[in-house]
């Protein structure tokens, strides 16, 4: 059961005119995991999701979801998955409760099942407080929770979330992450896209790093960091001229050094001795240094030479 593959994309490409949005992308998403597509704006995340639920036709390659070829039987696939779109699509004049009802009917739910499910989701996403107000009067965080509730109407085996927390305040993000964990805990497979490395790192069992429509690398967040970088990072500001003076010929196993403008990041097993040696070379000039764990943002930087959030 756990070895079952829920989404299988084989060498999928999508061309819009002359623009290659997705380029020979292959993915395998096993059942029960939370899988993240991590990449900057324009990387091809949304296009990949649209191909997976069958509203964008790949220019080449095939996609199977639940073992079914999506091009053959999109209805059968979509009856078993739920999608939260990047932009909320809600009926603004109707209340959360009515929105859920309308959406339930798209899945052909009937009473009493329809009401039962609506009530479950009003509770699960904490929508009760404003269940009868028109959606247009609700906050962004509330609307996002409702959008996610809609995509759960059919108790999906696979939940697809396109940038679920972009633009939300930290408290709402935390609450949504905990809902996603509840879902994976009960066996739902989750596929989400994000350009927040902290989201991917905290939530995802596996991530695929995407840039320019290609998967650059894929694996568990900790494993990606271990492969490409090292557990710790020292960050400091220095000019390219100072760099050899400060860092040249150190007797330390530095895994990797990256520069973005004035900022230099050094990745290594243990940061403390490096900090000491830099202090020593700085001769009393107490340069500001940040020691922190290496993260997926660093991996992205190491792999592509560009940063995630500022992408493109």
């Amino acid at each position, binding site marked *: 059961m756990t070895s079952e593959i829920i989404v299988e994309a084989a060498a999928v490409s999508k061309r819009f005119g002359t623009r290659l949005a997705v380029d020979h992308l292959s993915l395998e998403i096993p059942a029960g995991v939370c899988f993240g597509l991590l990449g900057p704006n324009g990387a091809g995340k949304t296009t990949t999701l649209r191909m997976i639920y069958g*509203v964008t036709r790949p220019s080449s390659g095939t996609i199977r979801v639940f073992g079914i070829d999506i091009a053959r039987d999109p*209805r059968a696939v979509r009856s078993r998955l739920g999608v939260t*779109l990047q932009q909320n*699509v809600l*009926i603004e004049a*109707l209340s959360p409760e*009515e929105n859920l009802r*309308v959406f339930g009917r*798209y899945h*052909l739910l009937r009473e009493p099942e329809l009401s039962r499910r609506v009530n479950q989701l009003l509770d699960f996403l904490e929508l009760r407080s404003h269940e009868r107000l028109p959606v247009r009067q609700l906050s962004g965080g509330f609307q996002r929770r409702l959008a996610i509730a809609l995509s759960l109407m059919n108790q999906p085996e696979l939940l697809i979330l396109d940038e679920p927390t972009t633009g939300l305040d930290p408290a709402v993000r935390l609450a949504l992450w905990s809902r996603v964990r509840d879902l994976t805990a009960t066996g739902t497979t989750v596929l989400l896209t994000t350009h927040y490395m902290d989201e991917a790192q905290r939530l995802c069992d596996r991530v695929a790093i995407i840039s320019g429509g290609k998967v650059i690398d894929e694996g568990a967040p900790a494993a990606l960091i271990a492969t490409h970088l090292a557990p710790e990072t020292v960050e400091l500001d220095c000019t390219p001229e100072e760099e050899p003076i400060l860092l040249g010929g150190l007797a330390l196993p530095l895994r990797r050094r990256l520069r973005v403008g004035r900022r230099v990041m050094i990745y290594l097993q243990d940061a403390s001795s490096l900090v000491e040696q830099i202090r020593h070379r700085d001769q009393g000039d107490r340069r500001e240094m940040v020691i922190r764990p290496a993260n997926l943002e660093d991996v992205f930087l190491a792999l592509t030479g560009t940063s995630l959030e500022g992408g493109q």
Partner: protein
Amino acid sequence: MSLSIPHALAVWRRNASMYRRTWKWNILPNFFEPVFYLFSLGIGVGAYISEMSGASYIAFLAPALVCVAAMNGASFEVTYNIFVRLTFEKAYDAMLTTPIEPDDVLAGEILWAVTRACIYGGCFYAVLAVFGLTPLPSSLLVFLLMPLAGLLFAAIGIVFSLRIPNIELFSFYYTLFLTPLFLFSDVFFPLKERLSEPWLWVAEALPLLHPVRLARAAFRGDLSPIVLWDLGYVLGLSLLLLAWARRAARQRLMN
């Protein structure tokens, strides 16, 4: 074929639940327009016209304006409303995350436009009945005609809506297509008394002409063989355009 009737009905129901909220505001302008024409032209201008095609002028106008009401009801729905759902509300993007397919969206929307055509046509018929302008029982036949007229104008409008890039272009649809149709489709004067033979053949292409002729036949209660041609035109053109709309919907909703 990938039409699923239950899914199409779910699309229809979405629109119906919205309409339940707003019908009071929606129905007023579109419904009153033909009523104003009826009074202004039927009673006002009609006072100077002793008869037209063998009837009082208001009785001549009445059945045609039922068709105009149905045309307006369907047209508004498949133009502005569909375009808003398509591009601003993105309602179809949400539907297509469920088992709903583009064919179901199209069918549901057409069915809803037909429903509105019937609501408008039906209300207008009620006004006519109050003024004793609906010969019974024969005029009741227009209740069969309303869905057909609705279907025809839903099909024409939806092809247009699915093909245009921005909402401003609807003013062309209204001023250069629907308004001339309204003025030159036998509604206000009988074309065959005013046009020469070759032009009459050209006029046969006008979509509103056929429902209007059918409505007059129903009110008069005489079904001459020409109604077969009118029915054939309405159904034939509707089906042709719907086949075209299917392709357009697939292209517009999926990529």
